[in-house]
């Protein structure tokens, strides 16, 4: 029983983490039809930036609790700097091209950003730690479930995941910009004909998507050692999540993250041997049963 609870807790924590990483990916795909491989690099960028900013914060001798602000600031910075630069400087010249070509464009971007990160931060693994070993990961204390200790930071992950998902769902359903966004998702050309500024919507979407990738990276940074190549490891995982859920679907990303998270936690606890390919196995099974993922739009009649 206690092991089952551990699976649940581990699974939910991991799912939250996955969701935070995957939600920006699915948003960008939904609106712009770009499966953004460079999402992994933006995630890494968020992590590296937060190491730098938290480092500055701690070195200035400011109160450790402020490091959370630095995490947030890093995500915003990534969104506001990298997002517009990439969208205005590169992607906007590519709209209308084949989806697969767009994937390749972001793959090229991913290769460039990987080396760029290396040039800026070097190849040494970095982590966030204050002069006395403080880290945003352990500052908040622990909680205990089923005889296991968990840092409260995990609750932050869950809270951020729920808040992000909720905020996006609310914004899409209730706000004017959200409704415009839904219109663009539904039909780009008709929206343009109706006078919606599609270019602007793409710009904003990509910036938000980049920011969400940055949030993922910034929140991950305190729990890991930030190292080159971390984006590559994460991106395929995020793909699996959004593909399982249905590309471009917000509830899909949530369900996909939950499934992947729980399956992985169960595998680790009960059958560690299969952990390595459990996720891809789930992905293949889901795609075989539901070719467009769990939450996919209805087929449009062509004739």
């Amino acid at each position, binding site marked *: 029983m206690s092991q089952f609870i551990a699976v649940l807790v581990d699974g939910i924590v991991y799912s939250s983490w996955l969701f935070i990483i995957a939600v920006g990916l699915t948003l960008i795909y939904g609106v712009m039809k770009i499966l953004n491989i460079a999402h992994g690099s933006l995630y890494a960028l968020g992590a590296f930036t937060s190491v730098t900013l938290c480092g500055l914060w701690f070195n200035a001798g400011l109160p450790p609790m402020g490091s959370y602000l630095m995490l947030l600031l890093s995500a915003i910075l990534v969104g506001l700097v990298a997002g517009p630069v990439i969208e205005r400087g590169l992607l906007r010249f590519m709209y209308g091209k084949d989806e697969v070509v767009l994937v390749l*464009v972001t793959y*090229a971007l991913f290769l460039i950003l990987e080396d760029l990160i290396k040039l800026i931060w070097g190849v040494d693994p970095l982590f966030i730690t204050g002069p006395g070993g403080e880290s945003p990961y352990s500052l908040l204390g622990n909680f205990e479930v089923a005889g296991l200790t968990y840092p409260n930071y995990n609750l932050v992950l869950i809270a951020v995941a729920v808040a992000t998902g909720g905020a996006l769902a609310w914004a899409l359903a209730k706000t004017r910009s959200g409704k415009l966004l839904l219109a663009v998702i539904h039909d780009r050309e008709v929206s343009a004909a109706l006078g919606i500024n599609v270019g602007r919507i793409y710009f904003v979407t990509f910036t938000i998507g980049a920011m969400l990738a940055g949030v993922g990276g910034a929140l991950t940074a305190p729990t890991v050692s930030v190292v080159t190549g971390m984006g590559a490891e994460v991106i*395929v995982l995020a793909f699996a999540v959004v*593909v399982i859920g249905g*590309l471009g679907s917000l509830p899909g990303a949530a369900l996909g993250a939950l499934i992947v998270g729980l399956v992985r936690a169960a595998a680790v606890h009960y059958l560690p041997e299969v952990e390595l390919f459990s996720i*891809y196995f789930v992905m293949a099974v889901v*795609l075989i049963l539901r070719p467009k993922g769990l939450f996919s739009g209805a087929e449009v009649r062509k*004739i």
Partner: protein
Amino acid sequence: MKLDRTSFAILAMGAILLIAGPQLPSWMVSMLNVSLCYGTVVLGMMLLMRNGIVSFGHGLYFCLGAYAAGLLDQMLKMPDMLLMVGAAVVVTGVVSAILGLLLAKYRDIFFAMLSLAFSMILYGLLVKTASLGSTDGFNVAAKTVGGFAVAPESQRLMVYSLAVVFATVSAFFLHSYLASHQGRLAGAIKDNELRVEYMGASVMRVVHRNYVISAVLAGIGGALMAVNIGHIDPEMTYWPQSGEFVFVAILSGTGSVFAPLGGALVFEAIRSFAYEYSPNTWQMVLGITMLLVMIFLPGGLWSLFTRKREG
């Protein structure tokens, strides 16, 4: 069979490469050899792309072909190059015929993703298989060709010549295939599947057949690569490898069977010189090259040649 100009050119290329082999510096033979193995895989990618389909998991067959070749040496002690390629053809043919039944229904990004999932499952399985060396893989040595022993000093040249022959035959076959009704049908499927069905052809069956052909080409490329490199590991089915095939296919363009072979050579040359002269930023060099090609040559490098014709 009537030979057109391209068919002649393919055969001429094969003959020239065979004759040039012994005269070229050995590093160039190596580079050509790797490019030909790659090019054979990319020929298969090109066939799929003619159908409007892109696989992000073709490393699966590249790897299966290589492991089929490797296991022939490792387990059955039959280190014959022709048998190795034959084993690769059989294994990739059978596996793709089965997976193709599923995949032929998928398109666009979903095809790409499901094929990616399959390739990653193979990766997981191989990593778990300690008896095959897990991620370290194992070495493959081919010692005979069609039962005839090859002297160690001429082995490199033999491996190269074999790659030339198989790449030439593959290109020749694929060109004839694409020049036939099947090639037109592939383009038709890319343009409008509904109409193809309403003209009485099974899109599924055509896609399935072309998927199997492309998988077998990848398998041949994998087996040739195994013999050429002398070592195989699960990295061959890891996603960046598959991504690289897509990369080379887009870089090359789908205009002619020469495009994948030439594109593979260009890619290999860029990569090799980037490793050498820019060891810290070779990924950036590749990324920028790729962006430039996609922005300025949307039809791939091949469009450089077709443009001249039109101009």
